[in-house]
């Protein structure tokens, strides 16, 4: 079973801070990581290969430094890692990004499953998977919690807020992974050494994937960012004072009563 996994290198958003003066992100010193949902996609692909054979190829569209993320998933065990990188992709929204990745997928051509992480922790859109599937004209299942081959089809469980659906899907199909799917393995030490000494991540430019500049980057993006800003902080908090816990609580309850969030029952 040949599987393509799409990954993204993202800043670790638990560490990100906003510059209070400019309202923009402070990127320095923020470590870059492989998007967490993508690791679940990689893990599942590796598990399927262990059971059913085949090739696992990881691809990523990003700036040159995204090669580090690809080395990391190579160290986890994928067979091939490809970076699709070109200035023409800069500024892409999800439509334009799906196009670029789609071109790379078309170049690889042979696949039974395309696995994506459901959502990236920087863009938070969760749109690439479905948009890519539509572009490639293949069925999609998102929020995948289980997948196994069933004859020439796939049996897939997809999560709902209050349960899940069991689906039967023909191949090739695109699946998006959530954290409930599996427990990703750590890159092995041997894998890390191999990734840095014996392996060269392939780099494809826009021309290599026959990407048309109008279909990607800013020209290829139907959505535009009007502005970004830091979320409004609330007005200052009123800290309740008091000599003891009981006194503080008494003061608080009085205020809550005044605010009408508690009242006589």
């Amino acid at each position, binding site marked *: 079973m040949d599987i393509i996994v799409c990954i993204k290198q993202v*800043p670790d*958003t*638990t560490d*990100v*801070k*906003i510059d209070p003066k400019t*309202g*923009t992100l402070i990127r320095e010193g923020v470590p870059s990581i492989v998007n967490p949902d993508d690791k679940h996609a990689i893990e599942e692909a590796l598990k399927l290969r262990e059971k059913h054979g085949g090739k696992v190829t990881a691809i990523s569209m990003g700036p040159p430094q995204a090669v580090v993320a690809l080395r990391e998933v190579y160290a986890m065990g994928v067979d091939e890692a490809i970076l699709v990188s070109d200035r023409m992709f800069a500024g892409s929204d*999800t*439509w334009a990004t*799906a196009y670029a990745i789609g071109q790379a997928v078309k170049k690889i051509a042979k696949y039974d499953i395309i696995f994506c992480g459901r959502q990236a*922790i920087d*863009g*938070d*859109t*969760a*749109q690439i*998977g*479905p*948009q890519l*599937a*539509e*572009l490639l004209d293949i*069925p*999609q*299942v998102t*929020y995948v919690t289980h997948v196994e081959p069933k004859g020439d089809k796939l049996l897939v469980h*997809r999560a*709902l*807020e209050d*349960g899940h659906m*069991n*689906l*039967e*899907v023909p191949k090739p199909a695109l699946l998006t992974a959530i954290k409930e799917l599996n427990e990703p393995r750590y890159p092995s030490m041997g894998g890390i050494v191999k990734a840095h000494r014996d392996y060269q991540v392939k780099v494809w430019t826009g021309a290599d994937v026959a990407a*048309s500049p*109008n279909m990607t980057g800013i020209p290829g*993006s*139907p*959505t*535009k*960012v*009007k*502005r970004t800003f*830091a*979320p409004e902080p*609330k007005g200052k*908090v*009123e*800290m*309740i004072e008091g000599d003891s*816990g009981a006194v503080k*609580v008494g003061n608080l*309850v009085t205020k809550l*009563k005044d605010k009408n*969030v*508690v*009242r*006589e*029952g």
Partner: protein
Amino acid sequence: MVEFKINKDECIGCQLCVKSCPYGAIDMVDGKAVINEKCTGCGACVESCPKEAIKEIKEQVVDEGPQGTENMGAYKGVAVFAEQRGGEIKPVALQLLGKGRDLAEDLGVELYAYLLGSNVQELAKELIAYGADKVYMANDPELENYRTDAYTKVIVDMIRESMPEIALYGATYIGRDLAPRIAQRITTGLTADCTELTIDKETRNLEQTRPAFGGNVMATILTPNHRPQMATVRPGIMKHKERDPNRQGEVIDFKVQLGEKDQLIKVLEVIKEHKKAVNLEEAKIIVSGGRGVGSEEGFNVLRGLAEVLDAEIGGSRVAVENGWIAQDHQVGQTGKTVSPEMYIACGISGSIQHRAGMGSSKVIVAINKDPNAQIFTVADYGIVGDLHEIVPLMTKELKEKGLKGL
């Protein structure tokens, strides 16, 4: 016109091609042969090259790119995907009708609802009662359970028929699967997980505001050249209108046309997890616990307070990951978004991810040992103290004063 190109790396500079060209269309530049504008595409040079360095350039498909939607002005109206499951309209759909109503008023247009399912006629009336002017209803056994392919086809047909300038979907597990597929098919812009929607009066553009970078940054997005402008909206943020059973509206029986390609996915089973559904989104008051609670038993202290206030129990990601409280109580970026009348955060540090889930609560009370905890930046009232001391005192005080939640 057929064009040729000489590969610089393979060219050895023998100039045989220069001699072969009847039009003098090949120059030598720095010892390598280069084709100039005189070339007519006759191809005589190709055979002359001993290194086979001259090749035909394949017709470059210069894609036009996602050109703006034709006839943008013809798109009028606000449409809402009225998500239903098992015959029940999801609350977010009603919230979107509420917001859609406001947007429609601002634009001076009608509000549509797209209803898909099997045996959903009664639901159509509900949608009108909550604000829809027109309900496009696709009533068909094939649509009983959600399937990406079938639902995408039907809604794309509905969009093409009704031509709304705005289309809204709840950012549910289904909405976030469906909307991007539609956006790609009809080539338009989609903004995910919006928390705010306004109309720019001058341009009639929809301004879509949503969190990014895990909630650290807010971005306002536009889709200036494509219609409909699509957005998925976070449940629990917008407010539905008062139900008006006397409201008038039109139900349009929409013809469902599904080809083989729209029915590739087969639903084998729909399984509901049988636990007492925790309804945080509807709760008026939430008592929530984080790292400071310390254990599963620690939550009993919060339950005591929740009982007096008739409140629901919430938990931060830390509490859930440590197994102190079940996942369906999780509030935050990767949990539920809530906006209750009062949110009491006990022993919660208030990371950005958590604040993203409860920041729009009306009144926020925070109890934490650490005076520098981030939670105090969003709280209305704060007490620095140990929740294991403070929370029981609150329960006691409320009981003694005979006070309950609103």
